[in-house]
C-alpha cells in the first residue's frame, strides 16, 4: 500500500512539474510579443490552398501566427454563432457569410475571393471524358458526395446529379462525407469508387494518383465563395491585414494554382 502511494506521489509531482513548466512558458511567449495571432475558420475545399496562402503570408510576416480550422461551411457557421474564437470565416459559398451578417455576428461585409468548381474524381477508374450521367453505370460503384445539408459542395453535387436526372436512381449508391475533405478521403482510400469533390482538392499533389473529369458549369451553379470578418475579428489588425492579403496578387496566384477562378474574371 505504501509503495503504491509513493508511486502516486511521484506521478502527481511529475504532472505538477510539467504543468508548471508549461505555465512558465506562456508569459515568455507573450512577452516576445508584438507577435499577433488569429484563428481562421475555412471551408474544407481550402485545405491545401489555404495552408499555402498562410505559409506565403507568414514568409513575409514571420512574427504573425495564423491557425486554420477546416470544416464544412455550415458547421463552421454554427460554431462561430456559438462563440467559437475565429476572427475570419472563409466559406465555400456566399450564403453562409450572408447569414452571419444577417444574424449580427459579422464584423464587416462578405468579400468574394474565389469561384469553386466540382469534379468527378476516382483513384481506380480512368475518369477522362466521363459525364455526370455516366455515373449511373454500375462500374462506378459507390459515389461519395459531401453532405448537402450543410456542405456547399454537397449541394452542388446534388444539383449536378439532379440536372443529369440520376439523383433518385443513385440514392442507394451515395455515401456522404461530413465535409468535402472527408468526401475526397473516401474516394482517395478507394472506399468509394468515385468522389464528387472540389477541384481545389483534386489538383493537390496528394490526389495526383487518381484522375478526374470537370463537371461543366452548365449543370450546376459554380460556388461564389466569400469570406467575412467575424464580430470578434472586426477590430483585430492581423485579421484585417490577412483579409487584405487574400485579395492581393500573391494570394490569387496560389488560389489559381488550385483551380479557383477569381470572382469577376470571365467564366470559361
Amino acid at each position, binding site marked *: 500500500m505504501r509503495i503504491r502511494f509513493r508511486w502516486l506521489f511521484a506521478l502527481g509531482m511529475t504532472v505538477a512539474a510539467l504543468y508548471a513548466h508549461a505555465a512558465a512558458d506562456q508569459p515568455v511567449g507573450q512577452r516576445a510579443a508584438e507577435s499577433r495571432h488569429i484563428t481562421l475558420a475555412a471551408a474544407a475545399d481550402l485545405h491545401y490552398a489555404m495552408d499555402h496562402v498562410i505559409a506565403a503570408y507568414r514568409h513575409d510576416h514571420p512574427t504573425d501566427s495564423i491557425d486554420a480550422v477546416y470544416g464544412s461551411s*455550415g458547421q463552421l*457557421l454554427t460554431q462561430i454563432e456559438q462563440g467559437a474564437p475565429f476572427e475570419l470565416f472563409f466559406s465555400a459559398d456566399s450564403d453562409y457569410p450572408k447569414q452571419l451578417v444577417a444574424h449580427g455576428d459579422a464584423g464587416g461585409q462578405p468579400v468574394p475571393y474565389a469561384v469553386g468548381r466540382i469534379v468527378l474524381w476516382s483513384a481506380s477508374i480512368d475518369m477522362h471524358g466521363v459525364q455526370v450521367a455516366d455515373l449511373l453505370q454500375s462500374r462506378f460503384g459507390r459515389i461519395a458526395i459531401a*453532405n448537402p*445539408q450543410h456542405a456547399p459542395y454537397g449541394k452542388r453535387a446534388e444539383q449536378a446529379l439532379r440536372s443529369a436526372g440520376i439523383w433518385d436512381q443513385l440514392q442507394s449508391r451515395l*455515401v456522404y462525407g461530413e465535409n468535402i475533405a472527408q468526401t475526397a478521403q473516401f474516394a482517395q*482510400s478507394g*472506399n468509394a469508387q468515385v468522389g464528387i469533390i472540389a477541384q481545389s482538392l483534386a489538383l493537390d499533389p496528394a490526389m495526383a494518383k487518381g484522375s478526374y473529369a470537370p463537371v461543366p458549369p452548365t449543370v450546376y451553379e459554380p460556388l461564389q465563395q466569400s469570406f467575412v470578418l467575424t464580430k470578434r475579428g472586426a477590430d483585430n489588425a492581423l485579421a484585417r491585414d490577412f483579409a487584405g492579403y487574400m485579395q492581393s496578387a500573391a494570394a490569387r496566384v496560389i488560389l489559381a494554382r488550385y483551380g479557383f477562378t477569381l470572382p469577376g474574371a470571365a467564366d470559361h
Partner: protein
Amino acid sequence: MMPLLSTQDLQAFGLTLRLAATVTAVLLLLGTPLAWWLAQTRSRWQRPVAAMIALPLVLPPTVLGFYLLLLLGPQGAVGRLIAAMGLSALPFTFGGLVVGSVLYSLPFVVQPLHNAFEAIGARPLEVAACLRASPFDRFFSVACPMALPGFITAAVLGFAHTMGEFGVVLMIGGNIPGQTRVLSMRIFDHVEAGEYSQAHTLSLCLLVFSFAALLAMSLLRPRRVERD
C-alpha cells in the same frame, strides 16, 4: 409546427436500435466464451489479451475507425479477403458498423462478464465437478446462472454504448440514410445545419433512454444480502 420527429429521424432511430440489438447479440455470443477463458485460464497470455480487449476504453474511436477503414477498404488485408470471398466491402454498410461497434463496445461486455465469472470462485465449480457435472454442464447450470447479474450489466452497457456511438461511425459510416445514418450522426448533422430544435428532440430522446437503461440495470440486478 413540424412534427416532433421527421421520418428521417425515425428511420435513424430504428436503425440505431437495430444496430444496438445486433451488436449486443454478437457481443454476448463472442464475449461469453472470451470472458470465461479470461476468468479460468492461467495462461501467460491472459493479461495481454485482457489489455487488448480494454483498449477501446482508452483509444480515441477515430484511431479504431481509421484502422478499420484501412483494413476493411478495398486495398486492406481484410477487405481483399472479403472481396476474394465474393462478399461486398464493409465500409459504408450496416455490416461494417456492426464490426466496428462490436470492437468498440467489446470491453463493456467482456469486463462485467469476466468479473462476474471470477466472483463465482473455484469452489461451486469444484463441487459441481464432484457431483459429476461435465464441464459443459458446469458452465451452463452453475456458472451462467450465478453470473446472471453480470450478463444483465454486460447486455445493458453493450446496448447503451452502441446506441451512443459516434466516432467510429463518423469514420467508416458514410452517413447513408437507413444504412449507416444513426442517431448520433443525425444529431451532428442537425447541429451543423443549425437545426437546433430537431437536435434537441433527438438528444433528449437519447438522454432519457440512457438514463432509463442505467436505472433499469440497477433495478434488475438482484440485490445481494445487506449491501453492495
